[in-house]
């Protein structure tokens, strides 16, 4: 790749400088295509986008939003989301996108989560829709709330004078924070990551290089923008490099996955990031006849990220879509997390992500022994090599640096590393040591590339979202027929869907079948209230669960026992 063709060069200053520059230099170029199924897409060019953002910024300033304020944005897929987000940045405030509550999430749980988040993250303003007012208003009025006001910017008139220049409203420095994002999770215990302009610009530059990004690229995304993958890869990266992005509603996509293919085909999309389950969902659920008029040849990279990468998911995806132009070499992967802004590794453009077969027993002992073919071996897919500005190590049980061929915890040092969790020095201290971020993921290094194979933490990852088993256990423990504290929850691989499934084992004295049936239902409903689908429930008699040395039920020991012994219902 000739470096002069690249979209990413050394970017300096602050993010807004680059966005304003695009609006001034390429006012008519497409910035964001807002996609709604069955409708003509709405196209923001740079002049319209930044002009609208500027007008929103003036209105937000009138409401009192100022530099350094944290503005939580809870807005569904809407064409004005993008200028509202940029408007917050215009004022030197920090946008923080939060998930719009799912219908099944109990309003009280949503409010509790928001209040917890407000306390931990120091939220100053809520920018949301009128539909949520009744749910969120108590968060503001309660004594001690950090939230100063609720703003409904979608209700403001869009009319205003055409803006041709884009004056700076607030001075910002590269070291100033530019955004706040939350680690995934189900409650107000999510950790808030603050990133500076410098960190994001460093990341956009270097990550852009790692995928040979060029001005002719087009990103297509259905990813939610409260997730680092959607926010950085499919929002900050394209906006900052001036590359068009097509934004699809995540709820529409998951109901009708063909939408992504339609958008790629119609817009000639070249890049997309996807969690592993998406490969299975699209391969299994898209009908051949819906594809007959579509071509996917424009795609040059589909980057698998945010869940363990599964070789069989890539295989079935390629089998299904090769006829329509998906080439094997577009199947890429990266390893990413909010704490490093986004990607730590990336597979090389133009090459399918590598896979190796390793001896299962040796792997369980922490050793990587490559075996020929697939005889008895576990297939592991590479997430690629560290991107520029990023170093990675495999760390052993006693903190020692391990060599190639050993399994250990992955630690990362990066120019775009976060500075710590906001208002959470204890959690920061747990993971940030001497400038290295300890990821909690297990993996190994092989021929210069990293393979992620498991987690030190008990987090369950469903469709790219992290779920903490404690949240599920707390919810299930509150059911009267469940013995308090005698519940464990864990994830198991679900090969068919390409993601994990939530399992619950709960001890109960209920013995009759009708009572057990009611209890299973109650457990599933307890999951629904915190927006978690519990796939499998096992009701165990008292004292079935194995305790850890601390006297609490051990997740690992009980998961092993369950997988060996149980017939699930």
């Amino acid at each position, binding site marked *: 790749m000739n470096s002069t063709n690249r979209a990413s060069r050394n970017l300096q200053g602050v993010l807004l400088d680059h966005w304003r520059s695009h609006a001034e230099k390429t006012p008519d170029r497409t910035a964001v295509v807002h996609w709604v199924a069955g409708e003509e897409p709405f196209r923001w060019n740079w002049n319209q986008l930044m002009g609208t953002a500027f007008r929103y910024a003036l209105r937000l300033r009138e409401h009192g939003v100022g530099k350094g304020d944290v503005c939580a944005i809870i807005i569904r897929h809407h064409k004005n989301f993008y200028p509202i987000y940029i408007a917050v940045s215009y004022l030197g405030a920090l946008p923080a996108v939060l998930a719009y509550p799912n219908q099944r999430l109990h309003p009280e749980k949503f409010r509790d989560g928001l209040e917890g988040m407000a306390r931990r993250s120091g939220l100053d303003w809520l920018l949301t829709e009128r539909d949520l007012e009744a749910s969120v208003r108590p968060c503001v009025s309660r004594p001690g709330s950090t939230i100063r006001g609720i703003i409904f910017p979608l209700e403001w008139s869009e009319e205003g004078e055409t803006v041709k220049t884009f004056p700076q409203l607030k001075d910002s420095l590269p070291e100033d924070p530019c955004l706040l994002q939350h680690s995934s999770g189900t409650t107000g215990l999510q950790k808030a990551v603050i990133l500076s302009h410098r960190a994001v610009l460093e990341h956009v530059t270097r990550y852009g290089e790692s995928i040979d990004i060029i001005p002719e690229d087009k990103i297509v995304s259905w990813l939610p923008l409260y997730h680092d993958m959607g926010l950085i890869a499919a929002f900050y990266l394209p906006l900052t490099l001036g590359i068009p992005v097509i934004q699809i509603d995540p709820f529409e996509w998951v*109901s009708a996955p063909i939408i992504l293919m339609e958008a790629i085909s119609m817009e000639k999309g070249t890049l997309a990031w996807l969690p592993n389950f998406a490969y299975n969902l699209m391969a299994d659920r898209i009908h051949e006849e*819906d594809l007959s008029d579509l071509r996917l040849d424009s795609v040059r990279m589909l980057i698998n990220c945010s869940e363990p990468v599964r070789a069989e998911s890539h295989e079935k995806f390629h089998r299904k879509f090769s006829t329509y132009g998906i080439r094997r070499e577009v199947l890429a992967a990266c390893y990413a997390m909010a704490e490093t802004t986004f990607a730590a590794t990336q597979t090389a453009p133009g090459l399918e992500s590598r896979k190796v077969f390793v001896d299962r027993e040796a792997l369980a002992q922490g050793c990587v022994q490559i075996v020929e073919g697939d005889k008895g071996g576990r297939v592991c897919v590479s997430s690629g090599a560290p991107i520029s500005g990023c170093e990675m190590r495999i760390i052993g049980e006693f903190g020692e640096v391990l060599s190639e061929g050993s399994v250990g915890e992955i630690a990362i040092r990066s120019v775009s590393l976060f500075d710590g969790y906001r208002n959470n020095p204890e959690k920061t201290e747990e993971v940030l040591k001497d400038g290295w971020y300890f990821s909690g993921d297990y993996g190994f290094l092989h021929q210069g590339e990293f393979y992620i194979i498991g987690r030190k933490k008990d987090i369950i990852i469903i469709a790219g979202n992290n779920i903490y088993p404690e949240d599920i256990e707390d919810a299930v423990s509150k059911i009267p027929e469940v013995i308090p504290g005698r519940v464990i929850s864990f994830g198991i691989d679900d090969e068919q869907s390409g993601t994990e499934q939530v399992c619950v084992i709960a001890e109960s004295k209920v013995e009759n079948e009708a009572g057990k049936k009611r209890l299973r239902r109650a457990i599933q409903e307890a999951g629904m209230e915190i927006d978690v689908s519990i796939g499998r429930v096992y009701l165990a008699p008292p004292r079935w669960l194995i305790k850890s040395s601390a006297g609490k039920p051990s997740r690992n020991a009980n998961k092993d026992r369950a997988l060996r012994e149980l017939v699930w219902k």
Partner: protein
Amino acid sequence: MVSDRLKKVILRQLDLDDFSIEDSTTASMVPGWDSLSHVRIIAAIEAEYGVRFKTVEVLRVRNVGDLQNLLDKKVGV
């Protein structure tokens, strides 16, 4: 009114023995009916009735009653 046949397809996909499903029932009220299982349920209904739903039709369905109406139109009830 939701037919027994449609109810059975939905419950089978969700691995539920029994659950009250009426016209006004939405996915969020039914255990296990989340965004991932939704696509599976739609595919199972298509297979059961030998029909095909368009993307926009699927996205307009707000509750089981809408789904039954859509299905009735497809099969010509």
